[in-house]
């Protein structure tokens, strides 16, 4: 095979891997949108917050040390112990559940029956709040996240694909972390699907998604379902936060991946879990290939906007996305 095609294939595979990471964030959006009709802009910030909390707990940072130092003139920063990764992850899940309860108790409860746009704005407010809160709690410096995930390129893949090309081709360059992310995403999607199809809570969740009032009338507690779904979204955010954090460090830009997840959602449809995955893959491959082929001609950095423009053009022809429910409008 000519090398050019092999390079394009490599770009494509890396695009698929990037797409998996987008899909991980998009998954959190879909879960909340399905269960409560809320378009949760804060999902990206939740991922950032989860990753920050994980790093902070792991390294034994004292929460709010910056603020405490400023107010009381002390100089504290670390407890002086380090937690094993698995304990820190369990504790972080606890924190995310707590956060879900707080969000339900102080925000969502008061916004039942508001228009979707108001709820959307509320989550933007929440995103701002969480961003400031996370920074105050754990400090705003860039942190490295290490929970023992493999790093670097996979030598095995490289060795076993080198024979495909000619002299100058050394095999596909694929990050081990990306492969782990793909496996994790697959496990996550399968377990979420099983959960929502076969467990009692899952059935209640789908009932709420279908019709709030009907679900209430057969005795499903709306508030419990909301806490549940925000907890799950928090868990998905944690997984996304770990993957992204291990890849590029825990920093503010992590919360911007939420914006990247939006075109993914538009492609896949807001209400479909498989749609989030497929949309993520399409966007990932599309933007990497576009940058590879057209990018050099127009000055590069096309990844900033390609996903949005693709989604925009796509929506003009199919407004509900690939897998979304058909939009029926009545007067």
């Amino acid at each position, binding site marked *: 095979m000519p090398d050019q095609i092999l390079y394009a294939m490599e770009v494509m595979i890396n695009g698929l891997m990037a797409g998996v990471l987008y899909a991980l964030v998009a998954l959190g959006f879909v879960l909340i949108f399905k269960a409560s009709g809320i378009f949760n802009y804060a999902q990206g910030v939740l991922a950032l917050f989860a990753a920050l909390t994980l790093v902070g707990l792991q390294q034994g940072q004292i929460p709010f040390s910056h603020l405490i130092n400023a107010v009381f003139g002390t100089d504290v920063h670390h407890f002086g112990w380090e937690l094993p990764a698995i304990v820190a992850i369990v504790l972080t899940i606890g924190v995310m559940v707590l956060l879900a309860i707080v969000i339900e108790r102080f925000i969502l409860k008061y916004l039942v029956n508001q228009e*979707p746009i108001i709820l959307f704005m*509320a989550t*933007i407010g929440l995103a*701002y709040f969480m961003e*400031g809160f996370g920074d105050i709690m754990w400090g*705003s410096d860039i942190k490295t996240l290490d929970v023992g995930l493999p790093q670097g390129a996979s030598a095995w893949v490289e060795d076993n694909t080198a024979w495909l090309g000619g002299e100058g081709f050394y095999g596909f360059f694929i990050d081990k972390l990306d492969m782990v992310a793909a496996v994790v995403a697959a496990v996550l999607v399968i377990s979420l699907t099983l959960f929502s199809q076969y467990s009692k809570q899952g059935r209640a969740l789908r009932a709420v998604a279908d019709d709030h009032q009907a679900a209430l009338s057969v005795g499903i507690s709306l508030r419990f379902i909301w806490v549940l779904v925000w907890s799950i979204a928090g868990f998905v955010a944690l997984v996304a936060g770990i993957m992204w954090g291990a890849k590029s460090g825990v920093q503010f830009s992590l919360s911007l991946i939420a914006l990247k997840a939006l075109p993914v959602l*538009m492609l896949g449809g807001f209400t479909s879990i498989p749609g989030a995955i497929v949309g993520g893959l399409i966007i990932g491959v599309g933007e990497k290939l576009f940058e590879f082929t057209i990018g050099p001609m127009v*000055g590069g*950095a096309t990844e900033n906007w390609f996903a949005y423009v693709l989604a*925009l053009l796509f929506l003009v022809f199919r407004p509900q996305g690939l897998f979304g429910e058909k939009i029926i409008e009545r007067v």
Partner: protein
Amino acid sequence: MFYREAGDFKTSYADDSQTFPIKFDRWRYYVVLAVAFGVIPLVVNDYWASSVLVPFLIYAIAAIGLNILTGYCGQVSLGTGGFMAVGAYACYKLMTAFPDINIVFHVLGAGLITAGVGVLFGLPSLRIKGFYLAVATLAAQFFLVWLFNKVPWFYNYSASGQINAAERTVLGVPVTGPNTEAWAQYMICLVFLFAVAWVARNLTRGTVGRSWMAIRDMDIAAEIIGVNPLKAKLTAFAVSSFFVGIAGALFFSVYLGAVEVGEAFGIQKSFLVLFMIIIGGLGSIFGSLAGAAFLVLLPVFLKNLLVGGLGWATDLAAHVELMIVGALIVVFLIVEPHGLAQLWRVGKEKLRLWPFPH
């Protein structure tokens, strides 16, 4: 007692349909104008102009623009920053291409160009609605910022990639460039804001505004009773982008003087203007002004309090500010989803009945 319609006799149709039917409101309006045009320019100093007044005036223009699109026509846009960038770069290109023409025309021309771009990005709104449209406008935001970063023609091949405003005068007084005095900056922005608010207020009272509101309330129903959605949506995009473009042009030429597109017109700006109209009140000109004033003053106030008053580090104060802004937005949405404008309306209703509330 003094705030009521009784005793204020209307003798013509023009009287009957005026903007402020209550005498007290009219007088208040004239007093505000007199203070804004007559008193503030005499007393304003550099600090107040550059940190409070000029940003307020410019954001108020942008907020009125976005409010027309989102508040009156119901099309949520997250592309305000991108459209402001179009205004800024159009103004820059016009300023450098036609240096002899008055800057006022450059700013208006920048508005027109932005209106054209706005209509272009508004076309999908005929197919896409709600959230989908909000995300689609992100395409405008990111694509436009990228375009101004990557195509050197837009910044006249300058080495830094920045655009700079040269000195321009209006009636012999410099309004852009380093020699501008505070009052001149303030006045030119005020004149534009006054014109924009006046046009917007009267547009929204007339046929165009009513067709926008019909589309906002329910587009299919509006179509059935004979409102042309194509015309209504695209005029909303055009008028809104025109105002936003003017705001961007002023932001660049009068306020900042030198602009780097990603920094000045990033996605944060889109959200900031959106917050202004939410906190101020969707579908209200007064709300746009109130929201802009609130969100311009709040950071200044917090910074003075936390950094100046309590002696905290600036980054800590910035984080606290983020938390407070976020919490305020949530609180506003819970307590008063219709914003400051609604509080104002309720206050006026109360005042009309005062002192006998029954």
